[in-house]
């Protein structure tokens, strides 16, 4: 069975989804999907171990050789991403049952879990596959379930946000489809590894250039990179809180993975960064993104909106690291992928707990919660410190690597700008601290209790991970560095 | 034999395409819905039938012949039915033929302003 791990990784949550439809009882379905997600997590750990020791795993679906059939190709980068996605999904799912109780009508609970599992399947499928068209199919599975999940939000704005996401997402996916079509036309193959072998021959053609542009724009739409981010804040703010926690921690990460995969592996380093001026473009967009989004975050009243904008800013950091196209820069991006998943997962879960108790998530509703829900608010604060990049948290580690990478290349001014950007994070995190600890609760608000255990356990698991990986950086840095080096073809 | 097949199929195809063509002209040129429907409904069924018969004559394979016959049956069944339903629905929902509507214009305006 060990040889079949790559496919089981995706197949287990996939097959669990239709079985859930048969089980019918929400509680049972929750337990079942938790088990499925947990199994996927366990498999991803095994896979990572296997990859770290023995190198790339290739799995031929249907027993057909690679360019003719579909291939699952797990290298260090995929395995790392699989671990992040399935891990976060399991932790978040743990709190799901309590959280959706108040946010989603009873008769739709089963559908919620099914869509959640399908969304997980889609993301795992995107990451695991080594076939360009298969990416599109699984991208659509995850997107379609995401649209439906977001539309389940309580307010009517959720519907509108979901519709906007649907339009933008479909345009993005269709762009990717056009791009894949163009490279297919020039090379005759869809397998990513095969593509990377055959693309250099035709790299100078205008068609490949157009294909590159379409794939990158499509992925950046999914990624919510700065000028294309318009769908994200509302989608995150109005979705059910569990969905927000899951997507904020995973969905954009998967898109970043796609960006890295296409630029580094498929089109190749020399094409992406020398033929096309990707470096300056992405660095500029990343920096503008950091500043524009952080500034918007400061002016938000809704805390979910605030952190949604902060997510866009964090994507900016990843893009800056990516645009350096050095091993250290990419390591910083990958580390930040992992770390951002940990902190945003924790923060949004804590916000879900607040919504569960208070019902609303405007800044004013946080007043006095520092005393009433000490553990939850402490989690938000630690997560916020991590967002700023305070030492002893994971945020510090990834910022540190990013600065190192920038200085290594002599980009001093950019390093200063990154630090300035972190100052903006201080401002918006402070607003929350201020509301929670230094303002008296509103007169008409009734006192609330601490969040139930089903929230506190996953929240604090993530927070402890936040601190642990901030102190003991060996594990995460080792994997990220190895993954980055493998993309540059440097052997360990 | 070949000669007869070619000529007869050509004949059927010619008639069929002429009917289709004239039906289309009628669809475009006639003054109101009912006359247009008349033009299309009558020529379409016959024209399609003619073309399909023409094709049946030149088909060599039995399966192809059978499928063409099936298409022919379907057109014969469906074409008139849809025409009938369309006309009925149009009339029920208050679309009057042009000659009538000129006469009854005044009545209709009164009745429609009431609803």
């Amino acid at each position, binding site marked *: 069975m060990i040889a079949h791990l790559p496919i089981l990784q995706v197949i287990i949550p996939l097959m669990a989804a239709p079985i859930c439809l048969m089980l019918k009882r929400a509680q049972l379905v929750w337990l079942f999907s938790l088990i499925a997600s947990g199994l996927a997590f366990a498999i991803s750990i095994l896979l990572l171990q296997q990859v770290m020791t023995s190198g790339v795993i290739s799995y031929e679906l249907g027993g057909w050789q690679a360019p003719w059939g579909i291939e699952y190709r797990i290298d260090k980068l995929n395995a790392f991403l699989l671990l992040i996605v399935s891990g976060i999904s399991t932790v978040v799912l743990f709190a799901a049952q309590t959280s959706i109780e108040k946010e989603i009508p009873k008769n739709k609970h089963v559908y919620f879990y099914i869509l959640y599992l399908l969304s997980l399947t889609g993301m795992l499928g995107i990451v695991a596959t080594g076939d360009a068209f298969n990416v599109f199919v699984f991208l659509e599975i995850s997107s379609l379930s995401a649209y439906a999940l977001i539309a389940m939000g309580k307010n009517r704005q959720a519907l509108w946000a979901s519709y906007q996401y649907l339009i933008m997402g479909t345009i993005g996916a269709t762009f990717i489809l056009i791009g894949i079509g163009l490279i297919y036309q020039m090379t005759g193959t869809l397998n990513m590894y095969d593509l990377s072998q055959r693309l250099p021959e035709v790299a100078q053609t205008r068609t490949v250039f157009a294909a590159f542009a379409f794939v990158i724009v499509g992925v950046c739409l999914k990624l919510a990179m700065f000028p294309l981010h318009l769908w994200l804040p509302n989608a995150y703010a109005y979705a059910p809180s569990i969905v927000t926690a899951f997507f904020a921690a995973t969905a954009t990460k998967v898109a970043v993975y796609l960006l890295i995969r296409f630029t580094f592996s498929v089109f190749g380093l020399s094409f992406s960064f020398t033929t096309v001026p990707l470096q300056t473009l992405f660095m500029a967009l990343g920096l503008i993104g950091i500043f524009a989004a952080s500034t918007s975050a400061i002016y938000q009243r809704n805390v979910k909106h605030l952190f949604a904008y902060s997510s866009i800013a964090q994507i900016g950091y990843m893009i800056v690291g990516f645009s350096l196209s050095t091993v250290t820069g990419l390591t910083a991006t990958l580390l930040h992928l992992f770390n951002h998943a940990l902190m945003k997962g924790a923060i949004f879960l804590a916000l879900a707990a607040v919504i569960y108790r208070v019902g609303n998530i405007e800044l004013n509703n946080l007043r006095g919660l520092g005393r009433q829900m000490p553990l939850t608010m402490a989690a938000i604060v630690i997560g916020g410190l991590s967002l700023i990049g305070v030492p002893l948290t994971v945020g510090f580690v990834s910022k540190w690597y990013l600065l190192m990478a920038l200085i290594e290349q002599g980009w001093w001014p950019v390093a200063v700008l990154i630090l300035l950007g972190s100052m903006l994070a201080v401002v918006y995190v402070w607003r929350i601290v201020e509301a929670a600890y230094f303002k008296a609760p509103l007169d008409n608000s009734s006192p609330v209790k601490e969040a139930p255990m089903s929230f506190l356990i996953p929240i604090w698991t993530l927070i402890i991970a936040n601190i642990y990986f901030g102190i003991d950086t060996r594990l995460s840095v080792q994997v990220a560095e190895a993954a980055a080096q493998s993309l540059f073809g440097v052997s360990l | 034999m070949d000669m007869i097949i070619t000529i007869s199929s050509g004949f059927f195809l010619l008639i069929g*395409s002429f009917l289709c*063509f004239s039906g289309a002209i009628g669809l475009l040129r006639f003054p109101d819905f009912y006359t247009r429907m008349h033009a299309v409904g009558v020529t379409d069924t016959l024209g399609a039938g003619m073309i399909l018969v023409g094709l049946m004559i*030149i*088909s060599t394979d039995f399966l192809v012949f059978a499928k063409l016959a099936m298409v022919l049956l*379907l057109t014969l069944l469906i074409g008139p039915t849809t025409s009938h339903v369309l006309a009925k*629905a149009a009339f029920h929902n208050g*679309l009057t033929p042009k000659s009538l509507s000129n006469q009854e214009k005044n009545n209709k305006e009164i009745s429609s302003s009431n609803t």
Partner: protein
Amino acid sequence: MLIAATLAIFVAMILAIIRGVIGPTLYDRILAVNMFGTKTVLLISLLGFVMGRPEFLDIAIVYALINFISVIGVLRYSDTNQFKHSPNDNESLKKEP
């Protein structure tokens, strides 16, 4: 002869599209679409013979069926109050200049 018939079908299709665009009433459009559907069935049958592989007539059968079903659907769901013909329909539905 096959080519001539195909061309005639094409011309009929173009005229049907024009009628579908200019309307003016709902039923004219339905009529145009219906006629377009039957013409497509014929076109598919003819194309099979023109291209020398006539064994794919299954598609023509599907077209005929789908055409029928969609016309029924159009009538069923245009049969609501919003679609009732009103005297000013003729003016308001004309294509905007």
